[in-house]
């Protein structure tokens, strides 16, 4: 069911050993997230936690039956996010966004973020 919410990218652009410094994951990145796949979810921000070691976006995502699924979007450390243009008030509750990133290996509704797309089409990457 959850998979129907996911829009898989045409190509998997993440290669294990040539990540560049494109994503500032820290804890268990390789172990927890499938770096060979990129997926996107669209929803409403409920909370934006501006904290170390990771910032988090909590997202309400409606599935095809109208039920709300609670997604947790993991970002990197605050200093690296700030260097990429993020601020503690970049998101607020109620914002409509699309989050794109690596899905959790265990199938839980969790992403490691690559970038977000705001409702107006503007994008913000979690990388520099």
């Amino acid at each position: 069911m959850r998979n129907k919410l996911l829009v898989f990218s045409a190509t998997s652009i993440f290669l294990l050993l040539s990540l560049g410094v494109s994503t500032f994951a820290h804890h268990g990145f390789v172990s927890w997230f499938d770096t060979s796949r990129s997926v996107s979810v669209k929803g409403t921000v409920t909370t934006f936690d501006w904290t170390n070691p990771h910032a988090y976006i909590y997202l309400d995502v409606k599935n095809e039956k109208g039920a709300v699924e609670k997604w947790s979007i993991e970002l990197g450390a605050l200093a690296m996010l700030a260097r990429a243009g993020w601020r503690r008030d970049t998101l607020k509750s109620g914002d409509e966004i699309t989050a794109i990133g690596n899905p959790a290996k265990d199938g839980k509704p969790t992403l490691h973020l690559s970038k977000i797309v705001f409702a107006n089409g503007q994008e913000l990457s979690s990388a520099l």
Partner: protein
Amino acid sequence: MRNRLILSAAGVVAMLAFSPAPRGQDAAHPGSVPDISGVWLVEKFAPLLFPKGGAPLQPWAQMKLKATNPQTDDPNLACLPEGVPRFMISVPYPMEIFQWPSQVLIIHEGTSVLRQIHMGRQHLKDLDPTYAGDSVGKWEGDTLVVDTIGFNDKTWLDGGAIPHTEALHVVERIRRTDHDTLVDEFTIDDPMAYTKPITALQIYKLKPDWEIHEYVCEENNKYTYQKK
């Protein structure tokens, strides 16, 4: 413990900042050594030393590797330091190098660990095992050669759980190949754990406009370490 390290690092750096001696010296001047000070970031985030497997491990180390679950057993999940050499090789956060005739200091943003490279002395005897070990350095031409022993066995070499013992011995050859590039060549040996030395290389890029920021890993760490 971490806070004490941070305070210690801040104190040492403040001391250096108010001292008349230069951090580094211009290589163009006779008798000087290259300046490697500044904020540096790994060019490529390489979480695994052996992405296809094949690490030259002794049988016990191979068994330990197979029995390790990186999702739950990585000490870093508990915000413990990655240690040397891991934080030099496979952590995607910047480090600042402070250079001094008697010491080269490295503060790593991702771990808030102070690494001291002592110039002009030998390894101390009866070292207490630590995460960063005891590093001594010397200049060989334009290359800073760093020899490190005195490790504890609580860290991994990389994000893939490659183990080591307290016999770990790391030799680094650090060279600024151009204004924006620093290269660190690693020779990592541990006869107790490896069948032959492991070599690795990391390239760092200068970030002249960056400063090292605060990083408190314990603030909102949601990962679970060893199911505790």
